[in-house]
């Protein structure tokens, strides 16, 4: 993809540690989307709210994955907004599943703060937000200048 490559170079949100985040979000996207699609097609009546929330989670993950892959300032903003939405949604759903378990007869990816997924759903957005903030603060400076500026 020649037209996206310069974007990746520009702010580098999808490089280095960002590429690890990008990979994790890719896995999350596939996991959440395939899980919710299977559940919605096969057993939607059992826990409609939980399955729709899983689908929403999957779509948010997909947006972040694409934003990290494309790079650039606009993508960084999209990723920041999506990561915040992800964290808020995750905290809201996590709290709801503990406060009112009857509304969720079946698990979502965000149930109990992502306990079923080793708490990764809560760790990854926080890491993502920190990473996006950092790469936004020093967008174009090469690594050497950054070290000089710090010392």
């Amino acid at each position, binding site marked *: 993809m020649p037209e996206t490559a310069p974007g990746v170079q520009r702010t580098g949100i999808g490089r*280095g540690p960002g*590429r690890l985040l990008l990979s994790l979000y890719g896995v999350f996207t596939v996991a959440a989307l395939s899980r919710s699609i299977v559940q919605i097609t096969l057993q939607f009546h059992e826990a409609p709210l939980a399955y729709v929330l899983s689908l929403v989670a999957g779509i948010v993950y997909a947006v972040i994955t694409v934003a990290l892959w494309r790079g650039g300032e606009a993508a960084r903003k999209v990723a920041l907004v999506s990561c915040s939405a992800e964290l808020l949604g995750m905290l809201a759903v996590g709290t709801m599943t503990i406060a009112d378990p009857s509304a969720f007869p079946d698990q979502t990816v965000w149930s109990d703060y992502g306990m079923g997924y080793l708490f990764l759903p809560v760790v990854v957005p926080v890491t993502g937000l920190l990473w996006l903030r950092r790469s936004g603060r020093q967008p174009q400076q090469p690594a050497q200048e950054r070290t000089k500026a710090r010392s």
Partner: protein
Amino acid sequence: MLDAVTITVSVASLLLAAWCGYATLRDQPTKDWHFIGMAVVTVLALVQTVVGVVKLAGGEKPHDGTVIFVAYLIGALCTIPAAAFMSLTERTRWGSAIVAAGGVILAVLEVRLFDIWGGISA
């Protein structure tokens, strides 16, 4: 038979994760040997897929349903190749970290596969 393969894949993927995690700590990208390791794990996952499909064709039913079982088999088969690809696009320590993460994810998928198939009794 399937359980034995599942355990083998789990152990192999955790070894791969540890190996690539070590490369991450030493600030090294993935090397040829790592890719050979990934190939070995992928071949094991392929064996698992074949054994699983043969079992299904033989009329055995997974405890949690065929659709979920097949979905996890496909997921397990694709994890390491996907990690290997991402690692090729990131020739730094973070490329090694991606494969380490992939190994852990595959091990988790194997635990789920074990449960979906029906645990020890099946």
